[in-house]
């Protein structure tokens, strides 16, 4: 049995267990901390930085930071909300995101996050980078235009599928997701049944021939805002 401790988030004391991350403890308490690279079935990597909170005044990614007894955490502050908004804007302008004709619209966590933050248009100039579309796989489309480099697919393939289909290649602004094959996804052992095919928060990994099966208007975030599954914990 893990030892019980108490942490404080935005002035509210909540119980936590040693070994938990701040995000896990907050989730249990019904406090939502925004996130994109984090996924409950995957080990956390702290790359999107959206979940940054202040721990005793210092910025820390809550998805990777373990709790300690007596930690004082700030989450919902004007300063952090502005920084998070800025990061969401950065993700929009570094890629080529066209929500209006993206198959992921309504199920897209980036789009949903923008709505949660009340963003209608990014404040930064679009970078319009040239990105590749890889349609070589019979069942899966890889559209790098919409990738946010969360590396969920990298981890899902390794941790859930026991494969190694994806990895980050390049560096800086040129960084992208590479595939474990001579050239493209069709050269890998990726299967449409892999967990990695279902884990993408945006419209980068798309399954072929099932597009728009669920109509626009009836999708995950069409009816409820992102984070509400966590916030529901607060009421119980």
């Amino acid at each position: 049995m893990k030892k019980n401790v108490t942490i404080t988030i935005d002035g509210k004391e909540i119980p936590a267990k040693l070994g938990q991350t701040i995000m896990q403890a907050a989730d249990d308490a019904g406090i939502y901390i925004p996130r994109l690279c984090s996924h409950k079935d995957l080990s956390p990597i702290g790359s999107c930085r959206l979940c940054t909170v202040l721990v005793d005044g210092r910025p820390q990614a809550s998805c990777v930071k373990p709790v300690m007894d007596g930690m004082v955490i700030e989450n919902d502050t004007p300063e952090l909300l502005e920084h998070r908004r800025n990061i969401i804007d950065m993700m929009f302008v570094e890629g080529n995101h066209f929500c209006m004709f993206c198959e992921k619209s309504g199920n897209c966590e980036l789009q949903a996050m923008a709505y949660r933050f009340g963003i209608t248009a990014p404040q930064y100039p679009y970078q319009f980078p040239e990105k590749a579309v890889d349609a070589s796989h019979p069942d899966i489309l890889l559209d790098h235009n919409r990738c946010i480099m969360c590396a969920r697919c990298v981890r899902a393939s390794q941790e859930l599928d026991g494969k190694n289909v994806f990895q980050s290649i390049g560096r800086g602004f040129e960084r992208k997701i590479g595939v474990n094959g001579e050239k493209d996804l069709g050269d890998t052992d990726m299967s449409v049944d892999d967990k990695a095919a279902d884990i993408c928060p945006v419209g980068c990994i798309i399954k072929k021939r099932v597009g728009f099966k669920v109509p626009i208007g009836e999708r995950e975030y069409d009816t409820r805002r992102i984070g509400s599954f966590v916030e529901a914990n607060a009421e119980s």
Partner: protein
Amino acid sequence: MSKMESVVTEICDRYGNDRARLMDIVSDVQRKLGHVPREAFELIAQGANTHHVEVESVISFYAFLSEEKKGAIVIRLCNDIIDRFHDGEAVAEALKRELGIGIGETTPDGKFTLEETPSIGMSDQSPAMMVNHEIVTNLTPEQIPGMIAKLRKTGKPQSLVGDLGDGQNAGKLIHSMVQNNIREAGPVLLSGYKRGKGIRKALTETPEEVIENMKASGLRGRGGAGFLAGLKWQLTRQSPGKEKYVLCNADEGEPGTFKDRVLLTERAELMVEGMTIAAYAIGAETGILYLRAEYAYLRRHLEEVLNQFREQHLLGKRILGHSNFHFDIRIQMGAGAYVCGEETSLISSCEGTRGDPTDRTPFPVAKGYMVSPTAVNNVETYCCAARILDQGAGWFASIGTEKSTGTKLLSVCGDCALPGIYEVPFGIPLREVLKRAGAENVAAVQVGGPSGQMVGPAEFEQTISYEELSTGGSMMVFSNERDLLEVVQAFMQFFVDESCGYCVPCRVGNVLLKSRIEQIRRGDGSPADLVYLQNLGTSVKRMSRCGLGQTSPNPVLSTLKHFRPVYNSLVRDNKTGLQKSFHIMQAVEDASRIAGRRSEVFHE
């Protein structure tokens, strides 16, 4: 078996088919084949027990590794702002003209590749370039035709080395034209060293006593962060783990820093001794010296120092007859990545992966190299440690200030008469350093390199210390004839080039900061852009994952603070309400071209 197959197999076998040695494997393959061809990825993956994409991941990360075939001679011209202010651009033009190629290109005959690279640690003798591993300094555009002719004739980079440098630079093993430029030798690092005294003294004490000594000396990390070295060693010693490691950070990549270059040249023994003392104190048997690729010209010299230490039983099994003390050091070459100076990136790189930083809970003192307790210190820190054991903690603490004990090696460069190395006691005012370096009409000093801060005359009375002006050693002097925003733009370009791209704020934010500085320099800036820079820079600083992103906006933020009038003179109120960065003619250009006619509404 093809040539490529036999080369790869032989190299992978040499490193025990160890995935953790992937950096060495791909570097050796590149040395043998001139590049790491894509067809070799699968062979390397099999030979090193890893995956095709992991091999690509490593090669695509490091600037000195390449999938593309390069020329037999690769010329890498340093493009730091200091080099550019010393006619570096004219040198670049001369190189392009003589070779008939642009930056990043290879001559059709496959003989030359021309590239640019950030700081190669020669800012005191700039402009400088690397020709393969050879360093060529104090370049002038007039020399270039002769140099290229010589290279064409001999095919040997060594043929460019004229007069040899001073000290060990002139020795057989370094044999380089690099000058030490030691302007001021202080009591700790650059004078008074006798081989073996520090380690002999340490072995008369218990490891715990050595650590207490270190703590009493007040020695703080010389890389810039300033963590107490003794406390770091103590935490490493106390962390549970069968194996422990001592890592030395010789990845001196901060533009304007070249003090470790001089220590590695003239005080390598002191550094090795310091690492050995650390090993004794924390209980480590393995040490790694992480040497930046730009300093490959020092490698043979360093290997020789290690060999001498082994012969004299100062390294190896049963050091100085001490039955339980075994320690040895291997050199890990870097491959061109500034971020690897960040300690967790350095560890990733030593483990043979791309140099992405990792999360700092757990810290390396608990889980570092190979998930084991690891002490990572700077070259200068280890040198200080050996002297502390030799001369005593009290002696060391009597130099400097209360919170910044000992001396600091400064590498001064830029607009001054005497660029070079100054070993000064902490607490010396910046103004005094500038005076000694013969710097006049100084408008600004970049203290601590691009990741540090730019200060003006109002700050010159402040002291070099962890309390006031903290620096890993880099001091770049800019006279009042320089365009400070050109400096800022160059520094932001540096961070754009060197960001690993792992986290969003650093990957994207630096690109946005740089382009807004460009816009302001073009005269398209308004006062609102200064607010934009402040807010964006703060987000990058606060939200980035590692030290690189947390300091990369400093060129912008520190000049906004200290040199506001420079910005104010460039921005203008925008009464039109139109975005100045937006040019309608450019925006409709593509559409006009596709339509095959000019726009009826928007045209010149």
